């Protein structure tokens, strides 16, 4: 029982580092830090609201097919204090995102870094992923 608790504790601490600083949410129940994904596309929607800011991008694959991805960031409060504003990402902006995919396999992911194509500006997305 003690050994099991220790193993669980260790694995949870690793996962915890990936959790946003807010009490919300259960990162490990939703995203897989071992499934990194790098996406480039154009912003189609921005939801600058708590508990997490979301933005959506159209991503074109090699065959030219367009898929829309939802990307979750930290809370707007954390992002504001890290220098983001609600107009940092605008509709039509070209961005590259490093993120962790959802366990469900759906086109959603938890963003780690967002790079604005126009300026090359690298923005931290407010929720770390558990992997360097």
């Amino acid at each position: 029982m003690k050994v099991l608790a220790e193993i669980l504790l260790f694995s949870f601490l690793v996962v915890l580092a990936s959790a946003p600083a807010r009490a919300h949410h259960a990162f490990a129940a939703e995203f897989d830090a071992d499934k990194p994904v790098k996406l480039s596309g154009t912003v189609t929607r921005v939801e600058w609201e708590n508990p997490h800011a979301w933005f959506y991008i159209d991503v074109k694959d090699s065959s030219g097919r367009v898929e829309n991805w939802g990307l979750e960031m930290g809370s707007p409060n954390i992002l504001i204090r890290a220098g983001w504003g609600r107009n940092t990402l605008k509709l039509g902006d070209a961005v590259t995102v490093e993120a962790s995919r959802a366990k469900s396999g759906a086109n959603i992911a938890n963003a780690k870094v967002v790079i604005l194509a126009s300026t090359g500006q690298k923005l931290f997305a407010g929720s770390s992923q558990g992997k360097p």
Partner: protein
Amino acid sequence: MKLIVAGFALLIFWSSNVSAQWARYPDNSIPRTRDGKADLAAKAPKARDGKPDLSGLWQPEPDPAGLPKGVPIVESIHETFAIPRFFIDVTAETKPAEGLLQPAAGATFLQNLQSGGKNDPGAHCKPTGVPAIANLPIPFKIIQTEKLVIILYEEGSVFRQVFLDSRKTVQDPQPRWMGYSTGKWEGDILVIESSGFTEKSWLDRLGHTHSEAMRITERYRRTDVGHLEYEVTINDPKTFTRPVKYTQKASLVPDEDLLEYFCTENEKDTQHYR
């Protein structure tokens, strides 16, 4: 090193941006050094009644030990403020760990650990209770008057009222997430006694729970203008065989204010939990 550079880059980015926000407004009550910066090492201020004045916007300090051992370092904003250890594990400094939990509480704790965070009330937009809410790296604001101390927490946009009017502990209370609090001064220390908590709240992220019989004693001391520390003692014999005790520190955030935070505003995660 990469981390430190990232931290500084963020700080510079931050300081060049926040001036555009209304949340940043110079507070004339804070003593200043010659260059106009807040003098955080100045003597703690006194209130009109001669008591130390705890008023201000406070940010719980990161874990002095950094991230827990074995956790990979990630280049992100969180490494510039590692989450305070007591938010992760409220029992982190209650030694020895063996035999601390009552058997039933130990079983519940194990279940919560196994849930990978899914059992966490916070993961379902339930409030973060006392004392966990003051262990998050998210600010709270103390407003002190002679007979009433109000604590406003950005997390969940919730409040606590601490009555210093000699009223007795509440009897047969309707259980609350934030409890019922009374306070008194012992020298320079504000001692807050709280009870009447709902057993739904968690004490930390790992999943330590408590019963409705839990009583919490907090001892707040402002060591200077820029620093606040609070010693927290959790008494709950139904959960713990001994009191759980720790001291958390917080730093003044000069010239800033709370932001609004409602977890249910645009909650989209629970539907994706696996």
